[in-house]
C-alpha cells in the first residue's frame, strides 16, 4: 500500500484503481449475502451481483467479449434458472426455512479462520506470476481459436458432462405414476 501512494498515478490510473476496489468490495459483500442470507431467492440475487462484478472486472481488463458472455451466461441463464427452480420448489417446502445447525461448527470455524489468516498473511508477500498482456488476448477470435486448438479436449468433454447431467436430471425429475 505504501508504494502505491508514493508513485505518482495519472488520473486515469486513479480511476481504474478506485473502480477496481469499489467493484471488489461490492463483490465481497454480495458473496457474503449468498452464503449468509436465509432466503434462497435473495442468495440467488447475490450470486447475480457477484457475476455482474466479475463481468465488470473483465471489462476493466479489456476483455469485452468475455464480459458480455459472462453476463449472458451467468446472470442471464444460470441465476435465472436458479430463480425458476426456487419458485417451482417453493411449494414443496411450504415456505418454511429450516435453520441449519452443525455439530462441528466450532471445529470448522477454527479451520476456516486459520486458513483465512494464513492466506491474508502470506498472499501479499508471495510473488505471483503476473504478465503484462500485449494485444487483445480475450477477443472472440482468440477465444474461439483457443477452444478449437489448445482446449479442444476439455471443450468436448464438457459437452459429455452436460449430456450426462441432462440424462440424469430427466430420469430423476420425472414424475412416477403411483
Amino acid at each position, binding site marked *: 500500500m505504501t508504494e502505491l501512494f508514493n508513485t505518482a498515478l495519472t488520473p486515469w490510473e486513479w480511476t481504474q484503481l478506485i473502480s477496481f476496489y469499489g467493484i471488489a468490495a461490492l463483490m465481497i459483500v454480495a458473496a457474503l449475502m449468498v452464503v449468509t442470507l436465509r432466503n434462497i431467492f435473495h442468495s440467488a440475487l447475490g450470486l447475480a451481483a457477484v457475476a455482474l462484478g466479475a463481468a465488470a472486472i473483465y471489462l476493466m481488463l479489456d476483455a469485452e467479449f468475455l464480459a458480455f458472455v459472462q453476463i449472458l451466461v451467468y446472470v442471464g441463464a444460470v441465476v435465472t434458472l436458479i430463480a425458476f427452480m426456487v419458485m417451482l420448489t417453493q411449494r414443496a417446502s411450504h415456505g418454511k426455512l429450516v435453520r441449519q445447525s452443525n455439530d462441528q461448527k466450532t471445529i470448522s470455524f477454527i479451520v476456516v479462520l486459520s*486458513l483465512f489468516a*494464513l*492466506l491474508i498473511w*502470506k*498472499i501479499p*508477500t*508471495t*510473488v*505471483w*506470476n503476473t*504478465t503484462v498482456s500485449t494485444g487483445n488476448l480475450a477477443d472472440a477470435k482468440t477465444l474461439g481459436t483457443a477452444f478449437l*486448438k*489448445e*482446449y*479442444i*479436449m*476439455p471443450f468436448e*468433454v*464438457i459437452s*459429455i*458432462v452436460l*449430456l*450426462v*447431467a441432462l*440424462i*440424469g*436430471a*430427466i*430420469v*430423476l425429475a420425472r414424475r*412416477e405414476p403411483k
Partner: protein
Amino acid sequence: MNVIQSFPYIYPELILVAGGLLLVLLDLFISNKRLLGYGAIAVLLLSLLPMNPYTHGAEIFNGMLIIDRFSCFFKIFTVLVMSLIILISQDYKSLMEKYRGEYYSLLVFLAFGMMLMASAANLLMLQLSIELVSLTSYLLVAFNKKDARSSEAALKYYLVGVIASSIMLYGMTYLYGLTGSLSFHDIFSYFRDGTADSVVILVFMLMIMAGLGFKIAMVPFHWWVPDAYEGAPTPITAFLSVGSKAVGFAVLYRTFMMVFPAFYSDWSSLLGVLAIVTMTLGNIVAVSQHNLKRLLAYSSIAHAGYILVGVAIGYTNWAQEAILTYLLTYYLMNLGAFIILIIVSNTLNSDELEDYSGLAQRAPGLAACFALFLLSLTGVPPLAGFFGKYYIFAAAIEAGNSNPFSYWMAVAIAINSVIAAYYYFRVIRQMYLVEPEDMGVIRQPLTLKLALGLMVFFTVTLSLYLSPVAEFIRQTSSMLTWY
C-alpha cells in the same frame, strides 16, 4: 502433440463416447433393456482393442492428457470393473426397468470419465474428468427412485462432493496464479526452479489433497461413505468402492508424483500418517456394524488406507507395483462380496447381518463363496488378497527410511489385519454357526452366477499365475517423473 496427431491415442475413449451415444439412441427403439446391457459390455470390451499396454509415453492434445503405461493399466482396469458392474446389474431387482437404458449408457460415459482421469495431465482436464465421474456417480446413487434412502444417499454424497471439489478448485486457482500455467509439466518446472514460499504451496497442496481424498474415501474426507454406500443401488456401491476409488488413486498418485516432487518429504509423511489413521478408523468402526453394506463401506475405507501406504512411499518401483497389485486383488474380492450381497438382497430384500444367519444351510455354495471373499479380504494365503497385502507390506519395509513412517505403516498394516479378521470372521460365524430362521430358496440368476464364478476363480487361482501377472504389472508401471 497437436490435435490431429493426438487422435490415434484416444481411440478407446472415442469408442466409449460413440458407444454411449449409440446406446442412448437405441434405448428409444429397443424394449428389451437386457440387450442394451450386453451392448454396453460389448462397447467396453471393444475399447480394449486399440489399447497398447506397452506404449511409450505420449503427451497429447497439447499436454492435456498423458498416454503412458500407468494410464493404460487403469484403462484396462476401468473396462474390467465397468463390464462386471453392468453384468451384475442385469439381474439386480431394485432398479426400475424403464430406466435401465439410461443406466447402462451412464455407466459407459462413466467409464469414459474414468479413462480421462487416469491420463489427465492438466489441472483443467483433471477437474473436468473428476467432475464427469462424480456427477455421474451422484446420479447413479440416486437411481433407485422408489427408495427414499437412495435419494438421501445421493444428496449427502453430492453435498460433500461439491464442497471437496470446490476446495480443490480453490487450490488450483492459487496454483495457477503462482505458476501461470495449468499444465502439470509447467507447474513441476516452476517448483523445481524453486522460488516460491513453500508454506503457501503446502496449503494449496492440501486443498488439492482434500478434493482427491474425497474420491478415495481418505480420512478425514470419508464421512459420506457409509450413508452413500448403504443407500445406493448395490452395483453402484460396488462401483464406488472399487472403480471410483481406483481412478481416485491413479489421479492422486500421478498428481503428487508429477507435480509436487519438490515437496516429497512433506506430502509423503502427511499421507503416511493419514494412511495409518484411515486404515485404523475404518477397521475399528467396521467392528460395530450390523448392516453388511455399511460393514463393507468401512472395510473399504480401511483398504483405502492400505493402498495409501503405497502412495505415501511414492518413488519406488515396489510402491507402484504394490498399488496396482492391491487394486487388482481388491477388485476381485470386493466385487465378489458385493455380488453375494446382490444375490441375497434380491430374495431377502435386506443387507442386515442377522438375515445372513445360517446361509450355509440355505445356500451352501453362496456361503462358501462369501467366506472365500471374506478370507481373501482378511489376507489369508493363498487367496488373492494375501498378495495385495504382501506387496504393500513389502513396499513399506523396503522403503526403509525414505519415508519417516514406513516402519510404522508396516506395523499398522499388521495390527489392522487382525482387527479386520475379527469382523470378517463374525460374518462367517453368522453364516455357518447360527441356525437359519427360515429355509426359503435363494434365487441365483445366471448372470450373477457367471460373475460370481469369474471372481471366485480368479481369487482362488491368482497364486498359480502370479508371476505373469506380476510381470505384466512390472511392465506397465512406469515411473511418473519428468526425467
